[in-house]
């Protein structure tokens, strides 16, 4: 085996890490500069920090509403997908259902469809078909929560399946012998044991929903707009307020950065959908 000086490797990786981190650092630099300074020579070093962009974003009522919408939609969607995924995995794992492996595979394929293709049918269905009286799902938080299930629910099922399969069936059976109801077995025996897997699923589905832009941009107009759509609106309408745009981006980025440490190991598995063991 080769044994080379580790310093060469370290230098190389410092360089690669620099390439990874610099664009993110640059985003931060732009976000803490007043507009006047931006157009002078681009300066890599921060000489003073100017928080006004952040204050402006937080004072903007529309953006605050978008933030709240984003929070509600991602939290609602993550909870829904994790709960439904958990029930589905329990059913797939413990019951002898006909064709269950095909069902499992079919749920997964739902995630592979390109979202751009589904813009139009989802928009038409939500305006024309999925409506009760005057209430349509378009531009509602509940509508977005349901739409995001198309990519997050398959993901939840995929990540939770091994977790639920890993809980020994004997535990359920012992509880049944003791006279527990199925609901009790699920909530008091299986659920506590699945907690770590459920937490990872919850966090990742939350981030995926938080990050989504395309569907939010086409299926909401006003009431249920999310922070990501707010960011793109800002660019197209004003175009020049780079500091504000950078500040909104930082706000959108923060939750992902926070959870990054917790789920770092699971990200690759999540993104490759287990096609490659990560």
């Amino acid at each position, binding site marked *: 085996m080769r044994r080379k000086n580790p310093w060469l490797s370290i230098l190389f990786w410092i360089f690669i890490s620099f390439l990874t981190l610099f664009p993110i650092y640059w985003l931060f630099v732009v976000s803490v500069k007043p507009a006047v300074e931006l157009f002078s020579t681009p300066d890599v070093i921060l000489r003073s920090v100017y928080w006004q962009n952040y204050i402006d974003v937080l004072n903007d009522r529309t953006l605050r509403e978008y933030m709240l919408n984003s929070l509600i939609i991602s939290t609602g969607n993550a909870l829904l997908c994790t709960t439904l995924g958990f029930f589905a995995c329990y059913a797939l794992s413990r019951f002898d259902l006909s064709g269950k492996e095909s069902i499992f595979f079919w749920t997964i394929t739902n995630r592979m469809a390109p979202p751009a293709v589904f813009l139009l049918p989802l928009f038409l269905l939500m305006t024309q078909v999925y409506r009760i009286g005057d209430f349509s799902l378009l531009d509602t938080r509940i509508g977005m929560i349901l*739409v995001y299930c198309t990519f997050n629910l398959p993901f939840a099922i995929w990540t939770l399946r091994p977790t639920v399969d890993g809980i020994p069936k004997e535990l359920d059976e012992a509880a049944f012998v003791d006279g527990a109801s199925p609901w009790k077995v699920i909530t008091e025996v299986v659920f506590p044991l699945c907690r770590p897997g459920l937490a990872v699923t919850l966090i990742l589905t939350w981030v995926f929903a938080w990050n989504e832009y395309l569907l939010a941009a086409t299926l909401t107009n006003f009431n249920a707009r999310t922070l990501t759509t707010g960011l793109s609106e800002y660019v197209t309408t004003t175009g020049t307020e780079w500091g504000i745009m*950078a500040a909104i981006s930082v706000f959108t980025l923060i939750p992902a950065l926070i959870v990054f440490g917790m789920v770092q190991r699971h990200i690759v598995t999540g993104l490759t959908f287990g096609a490659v063991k990560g």
Partner: protein
Amino acid sequence: MQSRKLGWLLLAPTLAVLFLFGVVPFFYVIYVAFHQWNPFAANPEMIFNGADNFRQVVFDAGFLASLGVTMAFVFFAVLTELIIGYLLAQAFMKDFPGKAIFRTIHTLPLIMAPIIVGSIWKLMTTPSIGIIPHLLDSWFGYDLNIGQSAGAAFAITVIMDVWHWTPLVTLTLIAALVSLPPDPFEQAQIDGANKRQIFWHITLPMIAPAVVATVFIRLMDALRTVDEVLMLTGGGPGSATRYVGVHIFKEVFPRTNYGYGSAVSVIVLYLTIVVCWLLYVGMLAPRNTKKG
């Protein structure tokens, strides 16, 4: 054994949600594609018009141009990611202090929202505020303007995609390389094989399944790239970076010509499936037949 009814009951909400938002849209879009339907046209009713929409799509220069640039984008982006990703994965195979930290940093872009990646690269490359045009100008006197130069805009979208997704390739290939048995490599070294021979005849065939899977995932994702490009260039200048997703979002969707839009969607979906199928057959089938 518990009652099956309960099992189906637990599965029912999942199936219902995926049916309503996955299966129904799929068939609905095919159905609408065979109709003339524009609620804001002289005749707002839905009228069956056979394959007219498809004929229109096939002769639509804008759509064909967008398919062309999409193919170029996917080719350059995925190829670059594979090469860089493989080299980085090899570099990770050595032991050096701080490896875990570097690996963590390398993973960081993966969790970032595509639209934020677009926003970051817009701030990096927009003339007069971006650092990249500034440095290129002061070092080489090259004027990078992604708002005017089609080539520059295309290149920057590829670079952005490489920045965002190479870590995925690196990490999947590390997983593949780690699991390789050392014996064939030691044997080859004893037999005097050089590095290039070892790569082509031992490493590559052994990690081929992982490479295929990675290409597959990256290809599917690159084909549906929308958010970041929309943010960075908005599809411009002209149609230089108007990849199919961007094309649907910017040109097809706002036109309210639903029949035509559905036909475009169906064709894009069909082409995505065909590309994946070709890849699957081209890369997996020959190996399977060789194995007998």
